[in-house]
């Protein structure tokens, strides 16, 4: 049964996974071509200096990529379930309704995490060619809220799409927009480090809210 669930979810999101991965790779290529170009014209020490003391972020092109990926994966996975209330088919399968929703959601979240880890891994490997480890660490800390924001976007868009009532969808969308914006405000090096753990905990809590939309659907809210 689990294999069948994962099979269906993969069919829905596979195109988006490959496209967003390609988009991420293009963004990374763009970043490191630019870094290489800049280091050739300004020597490496000066380039590092501008990063450490002038707040220059060579990876800002990545800022909204996790948001776009989270949004795209959530839409690819949950929009087909809402068309013609197709989620009824899913809830009618001979498994517990919450159980199947958790498995679908966990699959989407794991795929998203895998995409993010691949991109972060490649970013780290590429950065290691040009920068010392303390700059790489600071860069990763700076980017962390963006990737957490991507996960939060996925969880909140799933909540919105599965919600059966338009008025609630609108309300959730406004709240979600306000909340997700918080992950992307400012880009000072390591500025968000103190709140990374609370943000991670909030994101973890958000991972469960889709169950609420599923419950409301099953109770016939419309």
């Amino acid at each position, binding site marked *: *049964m689990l*294999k*069948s669930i994962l*099979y*269906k979810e993969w*069919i*829905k999101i596979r195109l988006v996974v490959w496209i967003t991965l390609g988009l991420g790779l293009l963004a990374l290529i763009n970043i490191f071509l630019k870094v290489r170009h800049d280091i050739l014209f300004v020597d490496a020490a000066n380039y590092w200096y501008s990063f450490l003391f002038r707040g220059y972020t060579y990876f800002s092109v990545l800022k909204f990529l996790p948001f776009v990926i989270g949004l795209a994966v959530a839409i690819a996975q949950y929009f*087909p379930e809402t068309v*013609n*209330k*197709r989620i*009824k*088919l899913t*809830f*009618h*399968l*001979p*498994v*517990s309704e919450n159980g199947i929703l958790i498995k679908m959601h966990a699959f989407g979240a794991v795929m998203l995490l895998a995409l993010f880890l691949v991109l972060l891994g490649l970013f780290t490997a590429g950065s290691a060619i040009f920068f010392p480890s303390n700059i790489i660490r600071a860069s990763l800390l700076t980017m962390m809220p963006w990737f957490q924001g991507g996960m939060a976007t996925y969880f909140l868009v799933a909540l919105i799409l599965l919600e059966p009532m338009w008025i609630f969808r609108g309300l959730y969308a406004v709240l979600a927009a306000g909340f997700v914006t918080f992950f992307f405000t400012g880009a000072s090096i390591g500025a968000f480090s103190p709140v990374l753990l609370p943000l991670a905990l909030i994101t973890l809590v958000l991972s469960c809210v889709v169950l609420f939309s599923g419950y409301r*659907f*099953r*109770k*016939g809210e419309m």
Partner: protein
Amino acid sequence: MYAIECKNLTHYYGKKLVYENLSFNVEEGKILGLLGKNGTGKSTTINILNGFLQPFSGECLIYGQNTQTLSPETKRRIGFLIEGHIQYSFMNIHQIEKFYSGFYPDWNSAPYWELMSKLKVTPKQKISTMSCGQRSQVALGLILAQDPDLLILDDFSMGLDPGYRRLFIDYMREYAKAEHKTVFVTSHIIQDMERLIDDVMIMDYNKILAQQPVEQFMNTFRQFNITLTSPEQEVDLDGIAVNIEKVKDKIEFYTYSTEDEVKNYLASKGIDYSSFEERKMSLEDAFIGLTRKY
């Protein structure tokens, strides 16, 4: 033994009452057709049966379990056809068969592939690009492969041309009778039901008008047409007729009374007529006769 038991169902949408204290049962091995005009609560009933709607009060049981808390084992015994033959249209016929087969230990793909072999679709063609008729065959094939004990078919005729409707009905009837399946079915096209169902349940706003074997209903519910000798004549048929339509001197009325009972009633009320005729009805005529045209 009942496959479905609904007891004292009451439901509102906001302040609008859909029905009150509605009770009905569906016997195992029977094909029951739920008929009703738009807005009488057919979809509400289907949604309650499938656990997608919590009634305001009352309960429905399927194989003894409340439909709000069906176990996976009971859900495995229920085949569900959503209105419009909705399926996972982003899959092709191979992918969807592979997907569903993982949930049902007794999955029998032979009838599915038999039906698919009749469709002129390519193996990788997505269901979303198929015609409504082809999609109906995919949905039907999946239900047959699941081999459930109870089939709930919500408006199966929607969007189907006469050929596909006939194919669907003949397949379903033969399958249900041969395998002793219970079927709960709704459709807007009542002439289809006549070929398919054993029992009929006719709903009107807030109540059930009839629930009985379709043969019994067709034998006891009658239409009479009379022509009055004088159009000005006052006519009171309330004592026998469930629905009366009068145009000038012509009266068309529907009743559960026999011809003799009707004639005696007319005589007792002093109603003079120049012609009297019992009109043979189809199920659709009887449905309209019982529920009125509007």
